[in-house]
């Protein structure tokens, strides 16, 4: 090789002896020398490794064994790992290597013991596969910012963009959730930055920061969730603290991008609130020592503001349940919102699972000094997924929730409202989603909401109504989806509001970047 390089450089010099070319030729020579030395070094290293292996074998074998065969000394090329050759040593059966140090990382658990005796009582042959140690076969681990186990923090970013068409002029008044499409045309009301990771050996923490573009394309920021929870309390206990979704029902604690429909259900948006029920507080949960899954949860939150719409909420225009609100402060323990929940799950068969829950929320509201609200809910979730499923498909999911809210609505600020009332509102939804083919799902949802009619309480959200929704979703991958949804709304007349029918169509697109999300059941 050296000679060849010299010859080449000599010829080049003879023809056009420029300094640049001389340098090039020298460079080439040096490169070739380096390659050759590297190859020699590799071969030597391999030889040493093989001899070490042989020594190790000899140490472990009590009786003097047959002379070990030497692996081929030729340095293998840096191609995909060469396979051990199935050599047949004289007088023995075909021997296949039973160890391969190259599959293990050096200095880490576990260590493989030396190979045992081959069949037929033949002496074991130390066989390693040093070719697999050739550099370049195993890339160095990438440096990652947002991946499990490689950084202190998982980061993900998720955006929902929805195009909307509707017969309703004010789509924002028809839709009940704050992250639902609010205007005809394009909407981006749920752009979410999610962070999570272990704080230390005792806590793990989560944060969801939501950026919302309103109808005027102004961005508002919501700290949707920011909490830490314990990781290793005894007896199946866990304590959580911070800003978090109240553990009420099934949809409330779920982030909108995990919903099966493009908008919130009526009960969720109207009885818990447009933003659902969430707030600053603490929560204790206990996985009961039963043979089936059962968990008891108790959350205590301030229950104040727009994210606790039925509780201490002064209201955007200074009214709650049609009454001018008093701005009630926390004075005693009973002024908090208490949210208990019990959930249980049963495996009906290896392919069918049922999860049922009962929740409640108790707390004061802002219509008077002793005014209180109670909300009760039951929920069920059933999923079927066959034993042979690719990418999670096919499946059938059925989910239903029913809620009842009792509000003692007092006479408001300075007793200015003519009367006190107890408003009993209730409703439910039920939805079925059928993942019929890999990447495709069809959904059907029925919604009903009963708002107690009152000749006194005028609020444009107090209208009994039902809705039927159907949709088709395509998931190009786990990290994106495209959903087409049709809603038919029927709103009944009340003492203040006329009846009306509305039709809406949404085309929702979602994409997710960053850490791989995990899905709760």
């Amino acid at each position: 090789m050296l000679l060849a390089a010299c010859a080449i450089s000599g010829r080049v010099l003879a023809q056009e002896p420029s300094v640049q070319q001389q340098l090039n030729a020298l460079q080439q020579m040096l490169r070739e020398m380096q390659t050759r030395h590297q190859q020699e070094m590799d071969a030597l290293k391999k030889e040493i490794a093989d001899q070490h292996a042989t020594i190790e074998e000899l140490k472990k074998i009590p009786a003097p064994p047959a002379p070990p065969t030497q692996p081929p000394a030729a340095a293998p090329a840096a191609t995909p790992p060469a396979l051990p050759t199935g050599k047949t040593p004289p007088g023995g059966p075909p021997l296949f290597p039973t160890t391969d140090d190259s599959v293990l990382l050096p200095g880490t658990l576990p260590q493989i013991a030396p190979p045992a005796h081959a069949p037929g009582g033949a002496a074991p042959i130390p066989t390693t596969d040093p070719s697999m140690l050739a550099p370049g076969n195993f890339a160095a681990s990438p440096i990652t910012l947002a991946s499990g186990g490689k950084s202190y923090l998982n980061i993900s970013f998720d955006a929902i963009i929805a195009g909307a068409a509707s017969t309703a002029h004010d789509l924002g008044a028809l839709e009940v959730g704050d992250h639902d499409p609010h205007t005809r045309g394009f909407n981006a009301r749920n752009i979410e930055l999610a962070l999570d990771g272990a704080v230390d050996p005792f806590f793990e923490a989560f944060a969801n920061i939501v950026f919302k573009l309103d109808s005027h394309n102004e961005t508002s920021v919501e700290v949707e969730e920011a909490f830490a929870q314990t990781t290793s309390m005894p007896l199946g206990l866990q304590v959580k603290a911070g800003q978090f979704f109240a553990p009420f029902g099934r949809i409330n604690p779920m982030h909108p991008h995990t919903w099966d429909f493009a908008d919130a259900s009526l009960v969720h948006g109207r009885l818990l609130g447009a933003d659902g029920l969430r707030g600053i507080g603490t929560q204790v949960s206990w996985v009961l020592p039963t043979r089936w899954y059962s968990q008891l949860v108790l959350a205590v939150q301030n229950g104040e503001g727009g994210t606790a719409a039925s509780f201490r909420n002064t209201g955007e225009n200074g009214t709650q349940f049609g009454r001018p609100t008093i701005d009630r402060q926390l004075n005693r323990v009973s002024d908090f919102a208490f949210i208990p929940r019990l959930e249980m799950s049963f495996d009906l068969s290896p392919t069918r699972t049922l999860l049922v829950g009962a929740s409640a929320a108790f707390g004061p509201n802002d219509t008077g000094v002793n005014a209180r609200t109670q909300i009760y809910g039951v929920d069920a979730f059933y999923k079927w997924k066959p034993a042979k499923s690719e990418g999670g498909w096919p499946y059938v999911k059925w989910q239903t929730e029913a809620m009842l809210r009792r509000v003692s609505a007092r006479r408001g600020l300075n007793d200015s409202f003519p009367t006190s009332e107890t408003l009993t509102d209730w409703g439910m939804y039920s939805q079925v989603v059928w993942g019929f083919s890999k990447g495709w799902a069809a959904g059907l949802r029925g919604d009903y909401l009963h708002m107690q009619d009152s000749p006194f309480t005028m609020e444009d959200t107090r209208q009994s109504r039902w809705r039927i929704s159907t949709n088709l979703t395509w998931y190009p991958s786990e990290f994106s989806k495209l959903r087409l949804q049709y809603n038919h709304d029927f709103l009944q007349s009340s003492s203040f509001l006329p009846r009306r029918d509305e039709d809406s169509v949404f085309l929702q697109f979602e994409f997710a970047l960053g850490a791989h999300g995990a899905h709760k059941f």
Partner: protein
Amino acid sequence: MKIPTLIAAALAALLTASQAKLNVVATLPDYGAVARDIGGDKVEVTVMAKPTEDPHFVDARPSFIVKLRAADVLIEGGAELEIGWLPPLLQNARNSKLETGKPGRVVASQGIRMMNVPTTLTRAAGDVHALGNPHFMMDPIIAKAVAKHVADAFASADAPNAATYQANYAKFEQTINVKLQEWGGAMLPFKGRQIVAYHDSWPYFARRFGLVSEIFLEPKPGIPPSPSHLVKVIADMKAAHAHAIIVEPFHNRKTAEKVASSTGAHIADGAQFPGALPSTESYVAFMDVIVARVVAALKE
């Protein structure tokens, strides 16, 4: 003096009660099979994923939380195969024995040199695993390393039976060593031959037995086969003289059949997990069947 004695007695009672049988949870059926071989009748093994389902997408059924809460040992891959469903289960299980770094948490990929570790991370390449290809249990030599790891974990969680676990490991190792001769011998005539896979789950198997696994029906990991990609696959297969396609129970076999009929290739109905095919409950029985099926497809 009385109270400490009582406490000690109570603790001892608790300990003996908990040591009636070692509770083992395995995320995937291959770890479960190894755990049964190593634990024998001293352990109670629960496996979360079904052998016939896609291990990337397992439902985080709440009943697993109950199993994890009572577990003494958890065996997981640790190479992102279970990333979509194990973390929320562990969060809810609140079992300090299973914390990362504790002897009760067996991370099977620990100490294994992973193949196909991506140099750049982008999901434009499909659902790639940052830590490398997680289908390493298809290499019996790696399976031995995992079995040793499991035996050590069992021994430390259940010291009175440590000798049994180590003896079972020795037996497992010896069986694999003997079997490797058989499997390696059967595969020897096909050294260097192409095996087409639906998903890139066979690199470790191919490396061990001298096959080449470079053509996949999926255009990118986790992305379903598109017609244009299959045209390319058929051309590639013809160029590489590839005559065997391996599919797993949850893959769309019709896609593989179409490709097979255009190329004259044969389909091997394989699997990644013991129990996915008839009479393959143990790791060795499973590998017996896989090797036989791959050999049969390559032979034709």
